[in-house]
């Protein structure tokens, strides 16, 4: 019991691994540091101390304008897109009992793209290639696209309950179909539209502002709380279904709720940040490497690490080829793809599950 933190008072009782609490604290500090770094680096360097002064004290002057209206909203959007994707991936990997699951594998990302492209198709004036409505409605379409896809996947996978295996297979099929629709829309759309669409599909937080933060943050917070309430259930979901039912868990009901929560998190992230890949896959993996597969460890840590990856990737994306502002999705994939291959190789040697 030396390695455990136990808190008991009356009928309340909680348990946490000491090591995980330490890792969580360190990660939180790294995350805060990344955010500060993101606020000070850019066309004009602003020292971290100055940034802190601006944040907590003085909100006038040119530097304050840069931090408060340009860098802070963009950094926060990157942060919450990352936390959402990390958390979404962690939940999904538990629900389908497979560490290779990620929001894009069950079609969330690709279907979000379809939603975004449907918006661009519907609201681009073919005469002058200008949008006939505000670009701010695009996230709504992306969200709808992603969320509808998950419902379709769930319904198609349903056959006296849903097995994780069917979820993944049908998810892959729906993702494939969504990709095909995306291609058709791009090929048939006006030329100017291609760049906008391509940017979106790669994933970018360029030009995000406080409106996006206000949309994304409460959404993330709400779902994060729901996820924390379901932590125990996720631990049970991660075992064989027979064992879970034997322990008295309402397996099917929880699977549905958790799928929806995971989809809602990823859809929110996709709606604002576009088709950012790999964060949902690698963030939970890094957490497992640092702690273990117990979800009280994996969930909060995945959110923090997902957010950190996004913030750091965005710093690289907007400074590497300055003044060119590259889509952040390039860098999450740039880091994520090699890591994914590494995981595949490693998994061949220590196979976790039979399929």
């Amino acid at each position, binding site marked *: *019991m030396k*390695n455990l933190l*136990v808190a*008991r008072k009356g*009928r*309340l*009782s*909680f*348990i946490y691994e000491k090591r995980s609490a330490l890792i969580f604290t360190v990660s939180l500090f790294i995350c805060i540091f990344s955010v500060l770094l993101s606020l000070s680096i850019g066309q004009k360097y602003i020292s971290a101390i100055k940034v802190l002064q601006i944040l907590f004290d003085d909100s006038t002057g040119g530097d304050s304008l840069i931090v408060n209206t340009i860098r802070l909203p963009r950094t926060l959007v990157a942060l919450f897109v990352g936390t959402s994707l990390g958390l979404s991936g962690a939940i999904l990997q538990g629900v389908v*009992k497979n*560490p290779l699951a990620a929001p894009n594998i069950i079609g969330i990302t690709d279907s979000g793209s379809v939603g975004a492209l449907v918006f661009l198709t519907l609201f681009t004036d073919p005469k002058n290639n200008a949008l006939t409505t505000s670009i701010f409605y695009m996230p709504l379409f992306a969200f709808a696209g992603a969320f509808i896809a998950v419902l379709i996947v769930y319904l198609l996978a349903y056959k006296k309950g849903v097995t994780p295996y069917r979820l993944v297979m049908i998810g892959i099929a729906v993702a494939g179909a969504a990709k095909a629709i995306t291609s058709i829309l791009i090929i048939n759309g006006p030329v100017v539209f291609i760049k906008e669409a391509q940017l979106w599909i790669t994933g970018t937080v360029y030009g995000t502002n406080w409106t996006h933060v206000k949309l994304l943050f409460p959404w993330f917070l709400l779902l994060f709380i729901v996820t924390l*309430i379901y932590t*125990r259930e996720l*631990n*049970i979901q*991660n*075992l*064989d279904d*027979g*064992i879970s*039912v*034997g*322990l*008295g*868990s*309402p397996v099917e009901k929880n699977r549905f709720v958790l799928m929806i929560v995971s989809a809602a998190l990823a859809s929110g992230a996709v709606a604002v940040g576009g088709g950012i890949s790999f964060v949902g896959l690698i963030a939970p993996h890094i957490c*497992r490497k640092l702690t*273990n*597969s*117990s979800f009280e460890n994996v969930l909060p840590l995945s959110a923090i690490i997902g957010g950190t990856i996004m913030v750091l990737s965005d710093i690289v994306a907007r400074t590497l080829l300055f003044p060119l502002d590259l889509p952040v999705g390039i860098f999450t994939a740039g880091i994520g793809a090699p890591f994914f291959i590494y995981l595949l190789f490693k998994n061949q040697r*220590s196979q*976790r*599950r*039979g399929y």
Partner: protein
Amino acid sequence: MNISTSNLTLGYGDVIVLKDINVAIPKNKITILVGSNGCGKSTLLKTMARLLKPMSGKVALGDMDIFQKPSKEIAKELAILTQSPDAPSDLTVFNLVKQGRYPYQSWFNQWSKEDENIVEYALEKTGLSDIRNKKLSELSGGQKQRVWIAMTLAQQTEIILLDEPTNHLDIKYKIEVLDLLKHLNQHENRTIAIVLHDINLACRYADHIIAIKNGKVYAEGNPKKIVTEKLINDVFDINAKIIECPLFKTPMCITYQNLTI
């Protein structure tokens, strides 16, 4: 708490596997279900643990229909260990055994003193106290199976059902697991029902054998009374000579295909 079935018919889709089964698992005894592959013994065990819904008929736990009872309440009276269960290999022994307390916990009460004591007891009973912080991937097959048994023990149930708990284990670990179950039965009066392939081990450990053949209960009772050469031939479709086990005085089968060739 007794568990029994009445007119239970089980199957998958349109295929009927077992028909009109009326069996009772005797209290405080070890019952072993035997039969050839695909005879439905695992299906019967899973249905008695509410993992599968019957086509018709009832399973009674005490005086209640098991499918009418809240699942969490059942989990406090009956534990089931399914065949070769799987869990993430980086979980520690403690992580997994702790899950056995699930039916007793809530979000606000995740680790009571009672939870701690019972998990401690389960680890000790199964000889896992010293390796509680090891990851599952570091354990031998026998140790892993003991972890799962410890998890069911943490559930603190009177009845424990196990589906082939010795599957894929070396003979040493088979005996280790069955001895542990025997101990739990004798010293803690737990009612235990096991699906087992090995008829000789079944005869040695069972107080009560249920032999299943062609979707029916072929025979049930104490192994010394019911295990005959005819039973082996009928149930397993193989010839056998039965002798008395020199160590345990239980029936022992020596099986052969056809001695004339």
